[in-house]
């Protein structure tokens, strides 16, 4: 394989491939570093922790990415066939040990640092007194239920489910407790912790609000609680993130984070509508 043909083609190919790798690195680093395409701003403390962990991971992987791709580009160019003799080697135990240990420590440290945000989402219970809202997902709408003036959720049963009668939660029609508030969108007071209890009546859906940095599958047969404290007044999209059938991409609703006063006003309004 010391043919002249091999050597002739070698420099052109080496230059083109090295340049492609360098362009890849430059473009990628620019688009990430300049935050040309950012996540929407987080509106919870946990969201900010997740973002910090994301930034840290971006740094770590970014450095490895640059070193590896530039290293590859350099080797491709430097060791192109110019008829030279190879540096004969079968490997190095020392190097194997060094990079195995280094990557192990680096990766597990990264994993350990990610535990905090996850623990805040899943291992910490909501404070007593957190606002309770039931969420019922179905093909292809969202329903939200507040306990109403009595502070208690009415009993439900699948046999009473009826979207056409405005009873998507299947509130037991024989129960005395008929003051629950049912809404097609999620209204929350700013700065107050809320616990959502996620349920589905048909297939798997997923509650996803980008600004909350929360995504949680809603599995039929299970009630899955999640909790968070929205800190920013505003309107946010609630999306379904788990394929649930033909209308999956149209299954969205709105999260409206409002002041405490506006929230109380909204509750009163809903109660009044209930009594009509």
């Amino acid at each position, binding site marked *: *394989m010391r043919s002249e043909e091999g050597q002739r083609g070698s420099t052109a190919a*080496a230059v083109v*491939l090295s340049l492609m790798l360098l362009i*890849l690195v430059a473009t990628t680093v620019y688009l990430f570093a300049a935050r040309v*395409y950012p996540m*929407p701003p987080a509106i919870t403390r946990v969201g900010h922790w*997740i973002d910090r*962990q994301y930034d840290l*991971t971006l740094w770590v*992987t970014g450095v490895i990415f640059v070193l590896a791709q530039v*290293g*590859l580009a350099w*080797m491709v160019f430097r*060791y192109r*066939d*110019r*008829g030279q*003799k190879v*540096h*004969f*080697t*079968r*490997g190095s135990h020392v*190097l*194997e040990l060094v990079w195995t240990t280094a*990557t192990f420590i680096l*990766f*597990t440290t*990264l*994993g350990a640092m*990610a535990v905090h*945000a*996850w623990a805040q989402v899943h291992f910490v219970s909501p404070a007593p007194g957190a606002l309770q809202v039931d969420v019922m997902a179905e*093909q292809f709408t969202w329903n939200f239920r507040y306990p109403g003036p009595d502070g208690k959720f009415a009993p439900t049963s*699948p*046999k009473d*489910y009826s*979207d*056409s009668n405005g009873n998507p939660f*299947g509130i037991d029609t024989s129960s005395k407790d008929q003051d629950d508030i049912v809404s097609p969108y999620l209204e929350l007071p700013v700065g107050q912790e809320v616990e959502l209890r996620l349920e589905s009546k048909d*297939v*798997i859906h997923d509650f*996803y609000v*980008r600004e909350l940095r*929360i*995504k949680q599958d*809603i*599995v*039929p*047969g*299970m009630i*899955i609680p999640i909790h968070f404290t929205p800190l920013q007044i505003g309107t946010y*999209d609630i999306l379904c993130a788990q*394929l649930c*059938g*033909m209308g*999956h*991409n*149209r299954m*969205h609703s709105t999260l409206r984070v409002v002041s405490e006063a506006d929230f109380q006003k909204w509750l009163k309004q809903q109660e009044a509508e209930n009594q009509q």
Partner: protein
Amino acid sequence: MSAEAHVVSHAPHAPRGFIRRYIFSTDHKVIGIQYWLLALAAVSVGMVLSWLFRAHLAWPNAAIPGFGGVMKPEQYLALVTMHGTIMIFFVLTVAPQSGFGNYFLPIQIGADDMAFPRLNMLSFWITFVAFLVLVSAFFTSAGAPINGWTSYPPLSAVGSIAGPGQGTGETLWVISIALFCLASLLTALNFISTTIEMRTQGMSLMRMPLTVWGWFVTAVLGLLAFGVLLAACILVLLDRLAATSFFIPAGLVFSDTQPPLTHAGGSPLLWEHLFWFFGHPEVYIAILPAMGITSHVLSSFSRKPVFGYKAMAYSLCAIGFLSFTVWGHHMFVSGMSPYSALAFSFLTLAIGVPSAIKTFNWLGTLWGGRIHFTAAMLFAIGFVSLFVTGGLSGLFLAQPSIDLPLHDTYFVIAHFHIVMGVAAIFGIFAGTYYWFPKMFGRKMNEKLGKAHFWITFAGAYLIFMPMHWMGIMGALRRYADPGGLPFLERMAPIDLFITIAAFITGAAQLLFYFNFFWSLRHGEKAGENPWHATTLEWTIPSPPPHGNFVEIPRVYRGPYEYGLPGYKEDFLPQHLTPEQVAKMAT
């Protein structure tokens, strides 16, 4: 095993009739080519499907030819479902393992065929039928399945009540995958038996080419993983057809006018666990053979031994072992115990270690070499670049807290397409350019091969890198269109960019098709050993005769003896005796 046992061939003479020789053949080489051609047919279908749904994403309001106007959401979902299923099962599992593995594993270990040639033929034909069954789902009246390649119940288990695409099409999907699993189990048994039992004298484990290590470890994964998916498919088939409730809980309601379903007691999470217990090893089933091919080709064209051969072999085994302990990272948001997520997270990060070891050793193999930029070598180098890029985005998804925003977004699509889709395809291309001369006796055209590489390499990054940013901004997978959401509508220019890149990259594959079929007849004659390579496949005629070896060879050294100082030639083939080698010393 004595040397004599090796010499006895399964079938000393090739069968004469066309059908026994080329259709229902038990020759591992014919079967390997059959698998390869099946994968080529499948990848062509899969790619056309992707063009169709990419066209819809770029021009959501335009009529797409053949769809009777603007594509409906269920048509879009059927296309992505079939694209994913075809690519993962019938391309990425078939070509690198069953295709190249069947052809070259026996030759590289000095055997005359696989251990069970008839079983081998049966595996291929079951796989072939599985493919026909899958594609037939397009022609059912209720439409092709729309549940994604992961097919989560209850959506996939309750039948037509859950909407379009849940009728016969989904049943055919399940049957197809069950058949595929059965065939893959038989293939895995064959590969394992062959590797353990049929190595020639001197072919110790640590003298096996890394390709053989790749195929062997992949076969072990296949044996353990496909059985689980086969069981899951049978259970979901019973849920669909026999009113059982393995995956369907009580009280499901799909319509105001119909009572709750009578199913009760099942768990959708059970399917997710079974599916991903298969599904994660599956990504390594796709990539390990490509890793083997990459190591093999990098060494051949750097004219140096593989750097850290033992570390490469052990890291393949480590990846194989760990691949069975990380399935939960697909389920961080599924509703499984959040405590188990931490274990899955650390194990997933741990599997990054042997992956990093492989990358360092590939760079070490290039370091100090004399690199020949053949088309095969370019694709192998491209594999390393893609594997690094796709592997690093895995570090984000391995952390459950970062997975919360990124799960099921285009970030994930970017990650797995680069690391196990495109990288594995690059492994297949590297293997094809490298072994074509052996398989067909002629070389593929190098100029066309290089042009194919430049466009495909640039194209792969242009298609999939932007998907990272779409995912970071919150774009979800399996969305047929922006659905009236302004933040998604604002990403339309990126979608258009990706679609154009996909069309150009796809069109460039015509270079490959042309090169492949043209070179069969008109390529430069290759001879026995055109790359001056060391392993046993290069010691026999191209294409190899039935039974491979006139006399089963004996092996005297490791597989990558390139560039040893003190010899006239820069490569020492495995089969040369010490006396022959001594004569080559300078």
